[in-house]
């Protein structure tokens, strides 16, 4: 059984969803309050969605300075797997663990709907188990999910294959219509240069059981689990 830590900030609201998603896959998930200074024996850290600190100042701007995030910085530097979902993605960008920023949706509307995602790089700890050519159908729910980075950063993201998922049509085309928030290059999720920290705006935690309408989110969790197994085998 693998051990996941799910961070909890004031006004996180998808923490229990993430715990549930991990548990239905048969693994252990523990909530970790933002004032904690240690991640304990966690093998994966999930930073869940929500509105940490009321989204005051900027989404994620205050959460990034919490004690638990200092532990996440050290964990990430040591190669630990970190996944930020929605507000978690915003926090990782604010923390400098991921490049770029998430700004107000182009439409100025809060978008809450199912989207389709194309996996741009299948060779990462977050995507390795996603079936080739499969599109993921996963919900988004955010007002500030428009991915922005300057030109140099975008070029670097492309050359280093750090773009993991892009919004696409149901036929897999990267169209403007399929982009719910105006993200540059239709970016829905990215990883860091080292490939151990990733963030995405859509919610795999809300697409992990048939009763929720989609189980496509499971492929992302399955990829993380496969990575842990590979790492364990490599050090055995």
């Amino acid at each position, binding site marked *: 059984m693998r051990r996941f830590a799910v961070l909890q900030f004031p006004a996180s609201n998808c923490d229990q969803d993430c715990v549930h998603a991990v548990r239905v896959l048969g693994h252990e998930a523990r909530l970790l309050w933002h004032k904690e200074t240690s991640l304990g024996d966690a093998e994966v850290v999930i930073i869940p969605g929500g509105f940490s600190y009321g989204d005051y*100042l*900027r989404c994620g*701007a205050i959460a990034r*300075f919490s004690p638990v995030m200092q532990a996440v910085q050290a964990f990430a530097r040591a190669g630990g797997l970190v996944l930020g979902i929605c507000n978690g993605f915003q926090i990782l*960008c*604010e923390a400098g663990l991921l*490049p*770029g*920023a998430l*700004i*107000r*949706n*182009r*439409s*100025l509307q809060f978008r809450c709907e199912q989207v389709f995602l194309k996996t741009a790089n299948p060779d990462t700890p977050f995507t390795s188990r996603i079936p080739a050519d499969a599109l993921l159908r996963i919900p988004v729910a955010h007002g500030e999910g*428009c991915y*922005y*980075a*300057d030109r140099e950063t975008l070029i670097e993201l492309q050359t280093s294959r750090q773009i993991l998922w892009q919004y696409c049509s149901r036929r897999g085309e990267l169209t403007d219509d399929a982009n719910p928030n*105006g993200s540059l290059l239709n970016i829905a999720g990215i990883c860091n240069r080292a490939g151990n920290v990733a963030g995405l705006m859509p919610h795999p935690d809300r697409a992990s059981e048939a009763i929720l309408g989609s189980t496509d989110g499971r492929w992302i969790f399955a990829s993380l689990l496969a990575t842990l197994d590979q790492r364990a085998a490599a050090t055995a």
Partner: protein
Amino acid sequence: MKASIIITPKKAVLDPQGKTVQGALEHLGYQGVRDVRVGKYLEVELSGVDAETARQQLEAACHRFLSNPVIEDYRLELHD
């Protein structure tokens, strides 16, 4: 001592709020509006620090926390 901090989206960053306000100004008949950027204004009151220390601290805070240099510019002013 009081500090005023004005934070605006960088020129290269899409500002849908600014564009919407600009459209509304035009719709209301105000002429010659070329661009609108919507930002934030912070007022910080300080005591027990000299102006130079206050400036240094706030510059650091603006860069590290109050603004996000990836998407925003800031302007800091100190008043007596």
